[in-house]
């Protein structure tokens, strides 16, 4: 259905009122372990909090959130965080970000009674973990859709992609986006820039607005008029550059509906956002525990399950929603197989 893909969420405004302070239910006690930065990123992490909020409202869930103090953490530190949460009787314990995969693999074995989940996670070894759910997303599918949007909106036949760190995760975004663009017009040029090659250097990749700005300016100067970013907060720089470039130049947000959190003068330039429904994944995990049938092993949230999608806020894509939904339908039906590697 059409509306599923358009449902907008990840409204950062919610991030501010901390659900873990307010919630007072009798439902599941949820332990949320974030990566550096944590709640309030108006994106990925806050999307999880939105899901948590829903669980608090619908299931009476309560929660505690734990965040690292420094970016220089080891898997031991992460494991200890998860342990402490499990130890305190939180269940489920959800790691927000694949960075928790290794730690989760260690700790899950220690607490067989607790249910764990890792967003974007994976099992680093060959021993399957009975009590861990790996909640992945078909980012390439969502990216494909915004790629189609970009292709339909570009006048200069040149679009751009700005990635944080060059790693398999972000490559999925690039691959889907490029495929989407090419599906509309093979001749549209896709400029690709990554802010760093060092996958362990999140700061340069995802907390680097000035870098994102320069990268976007470079692509704009090369004629790009739509730029999709998968670079966390570096995206702020992309928005800034695109806004400065003036009318007819657009940026595409990522993870949550970034139109809603953009400043007033940036909003006219935010074409859409690739929605990664971390909130859905989070809520489902909590619900599954509440229902006594906890999720385990791999679940991929794709278009079909409303796990990814695109945002319509601002109404810039209303005129092309037909094409977008058609593409979405084809993907769901499997008619289109979206590549997840460039």
């Amino acid at each position, binding site marked *: 259905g059409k509306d599923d893909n358009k449902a907008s969420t990840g409204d950062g405004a919610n991030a501010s009122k901390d659900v873990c302070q307010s919630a007072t239910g009798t439902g599941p006690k949820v332990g949320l372990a974030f990566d550096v930065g944590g709640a309030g990123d108006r994106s990925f992490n806050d999307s999880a909090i939105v899901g948590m909020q829903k669980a608090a409202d619908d299931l009476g869930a309560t929660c505690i959130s734990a965040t690292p*103090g420094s970016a220089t953490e080891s898997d*031991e530190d992460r494991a200890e965080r998860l342990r402490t949460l499990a130890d305190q009787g939180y269940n489920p314990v959800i790691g927000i970000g694949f960075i928790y995969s290794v730690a989760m693999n260690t700790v899950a074995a220690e607490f067989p009674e607790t249910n764990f989940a890792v967003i974007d996670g994976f099992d680093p070894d060959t021993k399957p973990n009975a009590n861990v759910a790996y909640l992945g997303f078909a980012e390439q599918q969502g990216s494909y859709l915004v790629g189609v949007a970009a292709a339909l909106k570009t006048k200069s036949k040149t679009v751009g992609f700005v990635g944080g760190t060059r790693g398999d995760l972000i490559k999925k975004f690039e691959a889907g986006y490029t495929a989407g663009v090419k599906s509309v017009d093979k001749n549209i040029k896709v400029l690709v820039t990554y802010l760093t090659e060092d996958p362990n250097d999140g700061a340069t990749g995802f907390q680097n607005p000035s870098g994102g700005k320069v990268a976007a300016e470079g692509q704009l100067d090369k004629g790009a008029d739509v730029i999709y970013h998968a670079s966390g907060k570096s995206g702020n720089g992309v928005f800034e550059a695109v806004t400065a470039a003036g009318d007819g130049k657009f940026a595409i947000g990522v993870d949550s509906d970034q139109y809603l959190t953009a400043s007033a003068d940036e909003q006219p330039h935010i074409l859409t956002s690739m929605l990664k429904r971390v909130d859905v994944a989070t809520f489902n995990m909590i619900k599954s525990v509440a229902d006594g049938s906890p999720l385990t092993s791999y679940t991929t949230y794709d278009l079909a399950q409303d796990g990814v999608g695109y945002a319509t806020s601002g109404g810039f894509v209303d005129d092309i929603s037909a094409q977008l939904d058609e593409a979405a339908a084809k993907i769901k039906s499997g008619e289109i197989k979206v590549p997840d590697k460039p």
Partner: protein
Amino acid sequence: MAQRPTNLARRAGLGLIAPALALVIAAALSSLLLVSTGDDVGGFWTTLTTKPENRNIVNILNYGLVLYLSGIAAAIGFRMNLFNIGVEGQYRIGAFVAAVVAGEAWLPGKANIVLAVLAAMVAAGLWAGIAGLLRVTRGVSEVISTIMLNAIAGLLVGYFVQKVGVSTGVSRSTKAIPEESWVGGIKLFDGVPTQLFGLALLAPVVGVVYYVVLNKTRFGFNLRASGASETAAVASGVDVKRMIIVSMVFSGVIAGLIGMPTLFGSAHNYGSSFQTGIGFAGIAVALLGRNHPIGIAFAALVFSFLQDRAGLLNILAGISPEIVAVTQGIIVLAVVIAYEIVRRYRANLERAHVAQQVEEVRA
């Protein structure tokens, strides 16, 4: 002469007063900050003062020993008046190379470990050697070169992980080390999930070697002499250029070991969740420990302890854990200031003593 024993007694006392004083200052300032932002001071202190659980003790030891290696690596440079900021890059090069070598498992079982560790030492040593070479041949300040080499190391490793790495879901890492080449942990407590990294025992060994080489050998003397007074060293026949390169390389060789305990003890591959920043922490640890093998050990434990508690702070006390970085910084400053005050006082004692002797001899 008469007051000499009292002097000694006072010196001994001073040695203990300094750190205590420092910790008090640090505590006071951190509390002040917490109060000023309306955070739960009580919670902060209960978290920091309650005895860590056994598994936390193990974690603290693990990280502390790793930090110790890093601290020694930095200290070698410092003793030679070389400001080697490059431990971070050398550590990552070493860890990556070891991970690849061990992952390829050209040799069976334990031999594989030895080969990988040696590879790490060599790779990191050579990487550090670049800075030394640039310094002696081209007069490039090691401060610049190591800063640049850190960045290059990160990018190189990142690139090669993408190239040779295997995909694990959404990220890449080097091939996993075969199980027979893992280094089992050492069980400190029963019923505790965490164990002491087997290779963490490298730390004390390195510490002893560091101490012996530096204080008991000709080489160590030359190194310290070059650090204390380059001119005097040259005049007395020390080949300072050689010493610069050698000490840079040694510093790197130790830096190469930093990643080993984790690599063989828990991670078993080099991936995107492999810890960064240990090299920089090592600089602080070395300075806090005044480049002395024992001092560095204390410093490493303090840092590791705070790091561990930081993880709990916002679960148990709802305090944002960044405060711990502030505490660490304050501790470093407070300690060196306290030590400086004591040092001056001691210098006076000694000078007084000298003069007193001089007077006696004259009289």
